[in-house]
């Protein structure tokens, strides 16, 4: 039994549970603004981040708690940031869309679609100029490929042969607009070839497939082989943001994807492979839920920031 297989499961369960608890906190009125849940896409964050080391860096999106947790961020500090408290990663000044943790190499979630992509390219440039074997990964959604800076960044990374992994999480909707309504060519992976970047479509709800694909691209990038692009096929099981009436998709479609839930799929795999019993996995879930509950409780007890901090950290 590989410990990696169980880690995949534990990490996905942790992200799912974290997001469900965040939804409850939002409903309680404790989280400001909009909340963009990662529920349903957990296999992408976990599979990709499992192929990265602590020294590798990532940029991600406003849906980014999945990547944060997968990269090793603390649930307590994430909860505290969602609540706007001083123990949050950004001392309460960033909020869910802007969480950054330099210690685990998270160069920021981002409120701007595609905004973090060139920043990952810059982090990869650092790897290159410093002569390290580290890589950077940029997570973004399918909607991001129509931003100019996506194309600019792909070209720059290809031209300079930078160790950057472009992870397009294709959840089939750019906010509320379905893929086929905003691109003529829905095969987003074909964009990669235009820039001279190897591209691959991956079942983004199969954590092992995501890991294997990323692992081989990361290995190539570490050895000077340049960037890679992945179109990770996945689906968000919640709306674009909480409160989204989801008028743009059918209940049948959502139900179909629920049946392909990456966590359920992996659980069945583990049981079928005799990697773990159902009881064992249930126990893991209970343990994780308990840990997250105590992290959330600690976060609730964290102080509000002092008004004197408003003017800090501007320059």
């Amino acid at each position: 039994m590989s410990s990696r297989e169980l880690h995949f499961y534990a990490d996905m369960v942790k992200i799912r549970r974290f997001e469900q608890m965040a939804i409850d906190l939002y409903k309680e009125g404790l989280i400001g603004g909009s909340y963009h849940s990662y529920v349903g896409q957990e296999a992408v964050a976990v599979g990709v981040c499992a192929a990265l080391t602590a020294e590798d860096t990532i940029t991600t999106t406003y849906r980014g708690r999945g990547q944060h947790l997968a990269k090793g961020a603390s649930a307590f500090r994430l909860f505290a940031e969602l609540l706007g408290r001083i123990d949050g990663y950004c001392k309460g000044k960033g909020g869910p869309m802007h969480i950054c943790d330099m210690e685990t190499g998270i160069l920021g979630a981002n409120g701007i679609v595609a905004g973090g992509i060139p920043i990952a390219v810059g982090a990869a440039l650092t790897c290159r100029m410093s002569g390290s074997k580290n890589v950077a990964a940029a997570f973004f959604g399918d909607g991001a490929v129509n931003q100019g800076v996506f194309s600019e960044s792909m070209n720059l990374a290809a031209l300079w042969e930078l160790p950057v992994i472009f992870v397009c999480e294709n959840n089939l909707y750019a906010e509320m607009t379905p893929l086929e309504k905003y691109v003529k060519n829905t095969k987003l992976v074909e964009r990669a070839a235009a820039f001279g970047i190897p591209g691959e479509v991956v079942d983004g709800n199969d954590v092992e497939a995501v890991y294997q694909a990323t692992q081989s691209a990361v290995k190539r990038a570490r050895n000077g082989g340049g960037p890679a692009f992945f179109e990770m096929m996945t689906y968000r099981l919640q709306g674009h943001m909480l409160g989204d009436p989801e008028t743009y998709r059918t209940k049948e479609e959502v139900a179909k994807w629920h049946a392909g839930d990456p966590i359920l799929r992996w659980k069945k795999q583990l049981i079928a492979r005799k990697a773990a019993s159902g009881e064992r996995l249930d126990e893991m879930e209970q343990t994780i839920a308990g840990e997250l509950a105590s992290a959330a409780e600690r976060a609730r007890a964290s102080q509000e920031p002092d008004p004197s901090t408003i003017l800090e950290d501007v320059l």
Partner: protein
Amino acid sequence: MNEAAMRELTIAQALNEALREEMLRNEKVFLMGEDIGDYGGIYKVTKGLLAEFGAERVRDTPISEAAFVGAGIGAAMTGWVPVVEIMWIDFTTVAMDQIINQAAKMKYMSGGQSGVPMVIRTQGGGGRGNAAQHSQSLETLFAHIPGLRVVVPSNAADAKGLLKSAIRGSSPTIFIENKMLYTKKGPVPDGEHLVPLGKGAVKRVGSDVTLISLSRMVDLAMEAAVELEKEGIFAEVIDLRSLNPLDEEIILNSVRKTHRAVVVHEATRLFGWGGEVCALIQEKAFDDLDAPVLRAATDDVPIPYNRMLEQQTLPQVEDIVQAVRSQLR
């Protein structure tokens, strides 16, 4: 200053020295921009640096301002010090997300975890028939954004000393040169020369009116002061050098002495930084004023191509002189 220790340099040469010295001083300083390597930059500011420092540290980029500004942010967050050249200030508009939403806010949004020690060098201003998309003075756009430093030098010594300070700073800095000034010569001190950001300079002492300016308009203000002196009016000329931080003291101290002020800027008038300076003066030195604070600024139009129209659109020495005369009437 010791005159013997000065050399005459153009602003382009002074900037080149600043880049070279900082690249020698700190091996993490590197350059990115369009045509800055082999070509040496369209105004030759980066001339010779590719040969000296190599293609890893002097990086010619595709015409992708958003991507290479963003790459600068990522590199800065991970320990390097990028000096990014945006060929014309008008082109910063295609990189505004990276400048305004990313670079300017990163330190604050991250709760102080990560600053973005990056300098964006660019050049603006009219006067050479480059028309509407290559002649703007957009410093106010950046000065309005919390988290950005904005530096706008007017002469060779300041250009060198301010650029070196900006490169050593910890904040994203928009360093705005002026296309008409690159060949302007001026004395530059030998050896290490740093000018702190946020400190203006009194270029000429006077008692009757304060002319507040920066970049190319400092020269016009100085010419206006000469004209005014012929009429017995002694103008004090201030070069702000930076808009953020803004040297409030140098403005207020002068106005408390002269009791009159004219702001001279090449940015268009409406919502230009002159309005901010006027507000500052009336908020903090209202009782010292003997006349309304006036502005000599570019008309609120895109810069026209025709030379005669362009000249008429931009502030001229006569506009400054007239403004002062009206205050003393």
